[in-house]
């Protein structure tokens, strides 16, 4: 490493600045999400040897050049982060490989040919020796790769465990970084409990809600547009994207850092996030807000001077206090509740008449509701991200029990 030398190279500086700028999640997420749709739309032009090779070379070149920078090197060359780089390449290759074959089958369909897999799907091959031979070679290659990897890269071992010295940042193992990233946007009991369960249940539900008989046993895109697009969005633009962001771009205080930025533990980012209710009352109903905000916005025990309050028998106090609180929360958060009600209750109906019309007509109420709820729940994540970036939005609904 020669940080002094490279620091003087204006071209390298410009390259670093460009990468840092592009990596900003506001931009990179937009690029990932929009890019995915663009790639799928222009799949015939994108998924060929030229573009695939170019993207892989570009990824490799950026990383190789980047490694000259000490800050980049520190994070990317960390032993436990090496698998994430491997995952980045494997994800690119497999996505490309699947789509290349899908495009090929699409072309074949236009010529009234069956999918390429069909050519050989009626014939049988001997397990001994043909399949075992393939398996044997795959096994040798992977074994050699693992042994080389193990020889050249030592497993990390940091200082002995010390419960009183919290490292900054403290990160979960990499495959849970998507969940840790969701903590930025959701209350812990959604990010850590509800959403993981919904992801697992949603994955299990896929075969039961996707009743499209086409595309069983061969690569295709055009025959399963909706299913593949929504899965790819969740898998690539959310799950893999958040793992990569969480590994390489989240530094001390879980603040964002560009790949070539120094992880400054003293970086201060102003936290001025506000709820929907704050906006609504302060901006739209300033008079009511000024007159009553003390009662409405102070969560906790209501005012004891209240006459009715004194009539409540002591044994019931907790219960009444609870319902009083619920009532206040409902009043205060009415706008967010209305919005979420619209989002989860009215949208499914609207979608049934528009985008999802075909699916709705070909299926039953249970399958349709499960699908729409899953897609809409997944949609809250990009929605919350964008609202956070544009309006500093914290929660749509913020009560002591449920924050969303």
């Amino acid at each position, binding site marked *: 490493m020669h940080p002094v030398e490279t620091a003087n190279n204006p071209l390298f500086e410009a390259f670093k600045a460009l990468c840092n700028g592009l990596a900003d999640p506001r931009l990179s997420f937009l690029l990932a999400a929009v890019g995915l749709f663009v790639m799928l739309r222009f799949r015939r032009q994108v998924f060929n040897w030229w573009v695939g090779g170019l993207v892989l070379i570009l990824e490799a070149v950026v990383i190789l050049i980047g490694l000259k920078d000490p800050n980049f090197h520190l994070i990317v060359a960390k032993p*436990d982060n090496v*698998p994430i780089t491997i995952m980045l390449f*494997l*994800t690119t290759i*497999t996505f490309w*490989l*699947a789509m290349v074959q899908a495009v090929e089958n699409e072309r074949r369909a236009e010529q009234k040919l069956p999918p390429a*897999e*069909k*050519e*050989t799907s009626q*014939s*049988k*091959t*001997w*397990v*001994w020796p043909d*399949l075992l031979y*393939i*398996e044997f070679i*795959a096994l040798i290659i992977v074994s050699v790769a*693992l042994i080389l990897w*193990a*020889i050249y*890269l*030592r*497993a990390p*071992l940091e200082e*002995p*465990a010390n*419960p009183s*010295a919290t*490292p900054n940042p403290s*990160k*979960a*193992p990499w495959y849970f970084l998507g*969940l*840790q990233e969701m903590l930025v946007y959701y*209350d*812990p*009991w959604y*990010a*850590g*409990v509800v959403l993981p369960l919904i992801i*697992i249940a949603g*994955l*299990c539900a*896929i*075969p*039961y809600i996707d009743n*499209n*008989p*086409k595309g*069983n*046993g061969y*690569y295709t895109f055009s025959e*399963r547009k909706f299913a593949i697009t929504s*899965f790819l969005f969740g*898998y690539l633009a959310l799950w893999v994207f958040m793992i990569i962001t969480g590994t390489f771009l989240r530094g001390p205080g879980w603040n964002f850092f560009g790949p070539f930025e120094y992880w400054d533990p003293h970086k201060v980012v102003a936290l001025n996030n506000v709820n929907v209710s704050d906006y609504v009352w302060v901006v739209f109903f300033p008079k009511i807000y000024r007159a009553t905000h003390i009662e409405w916005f102070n969560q906790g025990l209501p005012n004891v001077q209240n006459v009715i309050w004194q009539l409540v028998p002591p044994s019931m106090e907790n219960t009444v206090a609870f319902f009083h609180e619920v009532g206040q929360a409902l009043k205060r958060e009415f706008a967010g509740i209305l919005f979420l009600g619209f989002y989860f209750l009215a949208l499914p109906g609207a979608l049934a008449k528009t985008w999802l019309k075909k699916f709705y007509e070909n299926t039953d109420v249970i399958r349709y509701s499960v699908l729409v709820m899953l897609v809409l729940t997944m949609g809250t994540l990009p929605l919350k991200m964008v609202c956070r970036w544009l309006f500093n939005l914290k929660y749509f609904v913020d009560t002591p*029990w449920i924050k969303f």
Partner: protein
Amino acid sequence: MLKSLKESDFGAQVKKSIFRVGIPNTDRKRVLIVLGNVFLHLHPTKVRTSGVKLRYTWCAGGLSFFLFLVLTLTGVLLMFYYRPTVEGAYVDMLDIRSQVPFGIMRELHRWSAHAMVIMVMVHMFRVFMTGSYKPPREFNWVIGVILLVLTFLLSFTGYLLPWDQLAIWAITVGSNMAKAHPLVGAGGPFSDFLQIGGVPLVHPGSDARFMLLGAKEIGGTTLLRFYVLHCVGIPLGAAVLMAVHFWRIRKDGGISGPL
């Protein structure tokens, strides 16, 4: 004597006793060698040609299984040198690195673990993209999802065992989620509803996180708990589910392909 050496069928008897059929040079023997071998008979004797193509499966499922086997082997070797105690764990890590001959077992185990998580994700991606979860393979997809979760949990419980800063803080972040559980997590919503005569039932000494860690904070009890889950509990569960997974592949008509 030379003659009797030449005529002895000793070698042939040994070979036949192990392999049951000779060199598989006829179709009949190709069938018999796969059927007669407990490992090979995970396979059928013949498979759909489109299904063995590398461009179709990417070998991802098979390699997930292979990595699981590598992990079992290297894991057992590591168990010889590792004590799951607060005093022993970290010291043993240092010894495994410097004292044990052929000291890349920890590396092999760790990198295979990362590779397996990635490989299982890739495999799921492949199965989705070929639509192989569609009937009659719906249930095998569900088994697969559970295997995916178990793979995460295997890796997660193993992450604590080196007992260094990386380990305990990653597990701290991960297990804090258990605190946020509604009703049964001390920091989660509604947990204060569960009480008898004003005495709360759910508190840091009794909630979901406590059950996971065996204590209020990560310590020796957590290490032991994670060790047992990592070396015995979850691998057994995963092995059973893999058996079901492989069984169902065959019962569902072998690897998918256009009919």
